């Protein structure tokens, strides 16, 4: 699976409640996996309400500092605030949902 060459993947045109940034360093198996997992989770839980920006630190190393990126992949939830960080390949969906504050919401509506 390839990361989209497009830096952003926006499935919907509405105002995005969730602005997510995925920091990667090159096209590694982990970053590919993380993107795939993220995409899946977003489609399942945030359809039409999210925006994913992928930042490749090999191309934009100066961006690592601003969001205090250390580990890759790192998913940063920039909106809604507060900023949240989830590191790893996002393979544990439960943890990602908790990290994005989506777990409770889902539990509440379900």
């Amino acid at each position: 699976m390839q990361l989209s060459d497009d830096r952003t993947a926006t499935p919907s045109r509405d105002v995005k409640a969730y602005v997510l940034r995925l920091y990667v360093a090159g096209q590694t198996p982990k970053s590919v996996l993380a993107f795939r997992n993220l995409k899946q989770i977003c489609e399942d839980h945030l359809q039409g309400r999210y925006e994913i920006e992928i930042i490749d630190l090999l191309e934009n190393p100066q961006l690592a500092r601003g969001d205090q990126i250390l580990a890759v992949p790192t998913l940063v939830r920039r909106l809604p605030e507060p900023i949240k960080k989830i590191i790893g390949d996002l393979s544990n969906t439960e943890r990602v949902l908790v990290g994005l504050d989506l777990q409770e919401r889902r539990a509440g509506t379900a």
Partner: protein
Amino acid sequence: MSQCRQMSDSPQVRHIETSTSDGAGVPPDLVRVGELAKTLTGIQGLDEITRGGLPKGRPTLVCGGPGSGKTLLALTFLVNGATQFDEPGVLMTFEENAEEIASDVASLGFDLPELIKANKLAVDYVRVERSEIEETGEYDLEGLFVRLDYAIQSVGARRVVLDTIESLFAGLKDDAILRSELRRLFRWLKDKGVTAVITGERGDGPLTKQGLEEYVSDAVILLDHRVHDQVSTRRLRVVKYRGSHHGTNEYPFLIDASGISVLPVSSMALAHDAPLNRISAGIPRLDTMLGDKGYYRGSTVLVSGGAGTGKTSLAAHFLDAACRRGERCLCFLFEESPQQLLRNMRSIGIDLEPWVTAGLLQFHADRPSRYGLETHLATMHQVVADFHPTAVVLDPVTNLMTVGTFSDVQAMLTRLIDHLKTENITAVLTSLTPGLTNVERTENSISSLMDTWIVLANDDVGGHHRRGLYVLKSRGMRHSNELREFVLTDQGLDIFDGNGAHHAVV
């Protein structure tokens, strides 16, 4: 996507490719067999202990407890690199942000913001807060590598400091990933060819809490801050230095207004010059007793005797004579204040004041109990280095015994004398002996270090108080063995002729 990077998932995976966007990696540091390339730290004393500095292009671990000075040592290494050796540096800090660090070291005259502006220093503050991070699945610390690489490239860094990377263990949960990444990081630093200092927190068993010494195998420096009898002493030890000779002792070091300085090590070999020229002891008849010519330049003279036997007067004559020759003299006082000494000496006709005014003579008075022996030693070294004297007096050296054991004092004096000899400085040390009979016992611990030993003694014979002196030893010269009587006049110390009233052959 520029290129595919392979991540090492296991600690054993060899480091693959470190080059980034430019595609060309820095060639690995070529180490010549037999001679390790080194990088000067510019820290006084440390470069001597390590015989030329830290291993060039390799990481060095500096570990120590809180407040042991490891951050300061690391920063000094960076700042000196940028200001003295034209080697820009990168500081990656995990504990304090750039502003905090800058204000910490501003008092030492380090202007970090200026260095950053001049593009000689890059500071990146890495903040990891465990509570803000959710971990799920595999990750690596490539982000850290990218930041470090970016910082290195931005200033063309030759030196890197990571302070204190162990903080990562508090910030991230997965120790296994962290350890394999640290291993990779240290390899990466080597491949980059930067000379790195990695600070680590001292642990109970291993050198560092997280066993960093396992990864940094080239050089390990241990800093220690001890308080003994309410006297604090800082010490530095080179625990390991692969492929290089190094001093293995513990060396005292100082942190003062001018930064960090490790005591210039007493020369590791006995290789002092032995100058043949002689200088006057300041008393013509004493010169006569010393083979007609006085002390050897660069030698060490012990003047011992009981209270009130005239030790300080003898030393004052020496200072006076040296100043008359236009030499710079330093006088360490451990008992009297300079004013007391000046007044007392004036009463016997020795006026040292003009020499003080002329800048030839400097006093340095300190209570022995003010700090530990090591600090005394370090301070004396510092003062000697600043003043460049050719003659030094310590009065009385026995007062130092109150802050240490005989063996400690002996060790300290050995180092000091060693240093003075290396610098070809003539030294007169006075020593107070408690009574008349055990003259030689007290000084046994230091006498072997002395080239010349003059003993002063009072004597009461038939209700008559008399002063006497003799040369107990004086290496490398024919000297008098007579006990000579002397008097303290208002013209100074006057030694009677050999056939004087109180004439005895020892």
